[in-house]
């Protein structure tokens, strides 16, 4: 077999830029999906009936649709529904955020439910409102408790950003596939792509593990 790894080196600038896009997509998605996930979880737990039902519908819808379908849907249907024409990057980000927010909402809901009732009572006995008790007492503890779950969501998300390549977002998977198509260096490019994903994903997972140990709350 005739291998030519120079194709990776020759395209390093494109690959580095694409890797940057992948990382940026991951960070931006989480930056949206963590606060939105908290809000949706709180709506599912405490909101007035119909709002709660809507939040539940949203979560169950997006949790049970294949992400790639959501990506296509955001690309083809969202502009028709909303009249907005977003760039592929913004569309991909929206699809990822919709999906991950639904997962995070479930994670946060489980985390909030795991905090003892007595903690809310202690906060309320001090004179806090329900909102203050949530913000100051419940959510900070819930976040620490679910960090391991958020960590694995993060790592999944980092890999799942590759799905937005189907709508031509120039992230790592898309660019690597483009180079492969132009150079016919299939094995080299797929290997390079795998190496980049793994080398970036592994330390992220370890970093989040470390954060979890660092901020772990013991009772």
């Amino acid at each position, binding site marked *: 077999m005739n291998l030519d790894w120079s194709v990776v080196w020759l395209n390093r600038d494109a690959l580095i830029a694409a890797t940057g896009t992948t990382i940026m997509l991951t960070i931006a998605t989480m930056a949206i999906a963590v606060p939105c996930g908290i809000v949706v979880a709180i709506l599912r737990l405490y909101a007035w009936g119909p709002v709660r039902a809507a939040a539940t519908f949203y979560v169950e819808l997006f949790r049970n649709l294949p992400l790639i379908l959501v990506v296509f849907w955001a690309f083809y249907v969202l502009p028709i529904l909303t009249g907005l024409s977003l760039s592929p990057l913004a569309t991909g980000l929206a699809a990822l955020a919709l999906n991950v927010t639904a997962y995070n909402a479930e994670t946060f809901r489980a985390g909030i439910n795991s905090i003892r009732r007595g903690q809310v009572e*202690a906060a309320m006995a001090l004179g806090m409102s329900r909102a203050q008790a949530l913000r100051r007492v419940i959510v900070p503890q819930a976040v620490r408790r679910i960090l391991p779950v958020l960590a694995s969501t993060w790592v999944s998300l980092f890999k799942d950003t590759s799905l937005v390549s189907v709508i031509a977002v120039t992230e790592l998977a898309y660019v690597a596939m483009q180079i492969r198509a132009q150079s016919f260096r299939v094995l080299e490019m797929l290997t390079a792509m795998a190496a980049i994903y793994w080398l970036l994903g592994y330390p992220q997972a370890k970093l989040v593990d470390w954060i979890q140990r660092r901020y772990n709350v013991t009772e």
Partner: protein
Amino acid sequence: MANVEISATRAKSAGAKIIRYRGVIKRYGAFEALRGVDLDVHAGEVVCLIGPSGSGKSTLLRCTNGLEMTDGGEIEFEGALLPRDEKPLRLMRARMGMVFQSFELFPHLTALENVAEGPRTVLRKSLAEAKTRAAAMLAKVGLADKEANYPSALSGGQQQRVAIARALAMEPDVMLFDEPTSALDPETIGEVLNVMKVLAEEGMTMVVVTHEMTFARRVGDWVAVFDTGRIVEQGPPQQIFDAPLTERTRDFLSHLGWAG
């Protein structure tokens, strides 16, 4: 009935009534946890609620600051009926300190942050002021050297003292204690009771649900004996422990091995 006669012997009855319970009823489904409770708490008084488990002592305490809502009767705090609306209820809660059986310290905050949390979030003090006050309160309960400790690094007795400091930092008019020593190891019960005794000596108004009969007798000014959702007898500790008027009180105390 006997109420008039008894209040004559009530040492601190000259003080204003801080809490007044009249015919308080609380139901959980078909179960009546409180079946018409009448009780007064005067300023500076230590009122101990004793009686078997499930007799309604803790329920009455939890109704006092609206953690549970009553189903009948009245609770007055400082001359005003306990509000049912969230906002005025919060203002009233901020003037009552509560200490729980299971401490309920906030595990993600240090001892100092736990104590500063109320002044900071509820009283809207500056961070510096809240921390100064918190430090003073921790010193008061003898834990000045534990400011930076998280609750998980404190013994049960220390955690409960931090919880007392947390309640005191709100400068409450009354302190509610819900079995504050029931979850503690025997060797740490004393340190918590001592802090409570000092508070009582300083004139803090306290309502204490307790199984510590020695504390009720020595520190209590007034003792109410609960049974199946009612107060079966109330009076000064000398009466309750030395010359109980009802059979039920005698039974309860003899079950605890209280010689009388």
